């Protein structure tokens, strides 16, 4: 019981990070119908940006951890947003209206380019960082097993939940969100109503990249160790989460992320940590066989 509760906490923490990345996949897929394979690498760049910011802020003598985290978060989100904007501008926009596979291949190329860029500029060895937020809350103890919630996990819960709430509000309640949803449904019609569709697509990429960067920062703080390759695995998992939840659906992305996180945590806890990826992807395959549109995805019903 106690052990299961601990795995639940760990799984949710991990799932939140996946969910945050998955939102970016699902948004971009929704609006231009392509899988942005470079998204995982934006996550990786976000974690490197965070590491750079934390190192620089420490060198500048800022010792207040909350201030440091806030500045790092803003820095990583803004710079990653610029990356997201540039990626779309350079690699995807010129190919819009081309055949469907062209932007996909371009995305894979962009992913490899970003990985190599970080490998060359930051070095291939993994970088580690001491924990900024040590300590934990003991929840309860059973048969000598202590269930604990680390402060770091609390920070991850609070930050991801806040961002998801702001983001949901942005998409459902604001004019910008309405424009994004309109572009998602009928790009030409949206343009005909005076919406600058290119700008709206750029904004989508910027927001997705900023969320991924925050996920990258959380990853860095949680695991304390990153390298140029983390974007690939995390990206594939988040993509799985997006598909699991129903690609195009925002709540689906978060739920899919949580599910993947929980499956991994429980599988590592009760079966085998080495096979956790196998478990996660097996669930994906089963869900897709039973529900091809994912958990919350809507089937496209063409009215004739």
């Amino acid at each position, binding site marked *: 019981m106690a052990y299961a509760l601990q795995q639940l906490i760990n799984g949710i923490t991990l799932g939140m990070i996946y969910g945050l990345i998955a939102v970016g996949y699902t948004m971009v897929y929704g609006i231009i119908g392509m899988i942005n394979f470079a998204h995982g690498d934006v996550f990786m760049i976000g974690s490197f940006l965070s590491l750079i910011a934390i190192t620089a802020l420490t060198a500048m003598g800022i010792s207040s951890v909350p201030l440091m985290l806030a500045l790092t978060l803003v820095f990583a989100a803004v710079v990653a947003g610029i990356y997201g904007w540039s990626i779309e501008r350079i690699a995807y926009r010129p190919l819009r209206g081309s055949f469907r596979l062209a932007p996909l291949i371009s995305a894979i190329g962009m992913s490899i380019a970003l990985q190599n860029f970080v490998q060359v500029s930051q070095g291939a060895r993994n970088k580690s960082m001491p924990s900024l937020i040590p300590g934990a809350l003991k929840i309860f103890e059973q048969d000598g097993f202590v269930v604990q919630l680390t402060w770091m996990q609390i920070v991850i819960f609070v930050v991801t939940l806040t961002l998801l709430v702001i983001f949901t509000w942005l998409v459902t309640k604001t004019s*910008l969100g*309405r424009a994004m*949803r309109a572009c998602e*449904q009928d790009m030409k019609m949206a*343009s*005909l*109503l005076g919406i600058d569709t290119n700008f709206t697509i750029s904004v989508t990429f910027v927001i997705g990249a900023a969320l991924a960067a925050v996920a990258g920062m959380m990853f860095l703080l949680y695991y304390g160790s990153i390298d140029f390759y983390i974007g690939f695995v995390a990206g594939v998992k988040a993509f799985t989460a997006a598909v699991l939840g129903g690609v195009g659906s925002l709540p689906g992305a978060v739920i899919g992320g949580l599910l993947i996180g929980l499956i991994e945590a429980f599988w590592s806890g009760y079966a085998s940590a080495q096979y956790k990826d196998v478990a996660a992807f097996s669930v994906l395959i089963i869900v897709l066989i039973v529900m091809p549109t994912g958990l919350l995805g809507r089937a496209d019903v063409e009215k004739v």
Partner: protein
Amino acid sequence: MGAPLLTVADLTMKFGGLTAVDSLSFVANAGEITAVIGPNGAGKTTVFNCITGFYKASSGTISLSSAAGDFALATMQGHNITRQAKVARTFQNIRLFSGMTVLENLLVAQHNMVMPDVVHGVLAVFGLGGYRSLERQALDKAKYWLDQVKLLSRADVPAGSLPYGDQRRLEIARAMCTGPSLLCLDEPAAGLNPRESDELAVLLTSIRDSGCAIMLIEHDMGVVMKISDHVVVLEYGRKISDGTPEHIRADPKVIAAYLGEDEDEVAA
């Protein structure tokens, strides 16, 4: 009646070897309803597509002069035709954002008024820059048009779940929410029953009287003859007649195009 609003001069649109519109010229006046009629395949929708920037005309000019200024539509970017030149349109097949609510459909059309530029967009995220009052204005305008098309009670249902006739009216309301000086309607009466067609005629007349000029493609001659101030008739991409509804009705070329020529007349 009004001054020329839209002037189409020598418009030609070719698709490969096919000439869909052949050196067409006509004028649509401000404050009038101009109908474009003609048999199927005459190039009516193509003309609309050129005006609203869906197609780039092969040659010729389309100019619009309104209170907002003079615009050469043939060379403008798609979204700027709505944004700056204030031309709105609806489609033959309904293109509502079916997953969004009725109200949201009308609010989307006012996006540029609520968020005119990037700076406003950023400020709006923090609730600054007058975003709230602009949003409220947009809401008022949406409600006004919902009331005009008698859909106020359906504001919060998904647009896709409305009956067909309601969706047609909603499309017109949405186009009007962009604040157009020219409204282009592609077969708005298609699929409507006689009572709905009559309501549509009343709605269009009231839109015209509020100062927005209308261009209309329509096969329902009852509607066309009743509300149009000016009719342009196309056949095989060429203009065969142009004038008041009475003039058109009496024009032998129009009658021939629609009914086919009588054998006696051909002989004579």
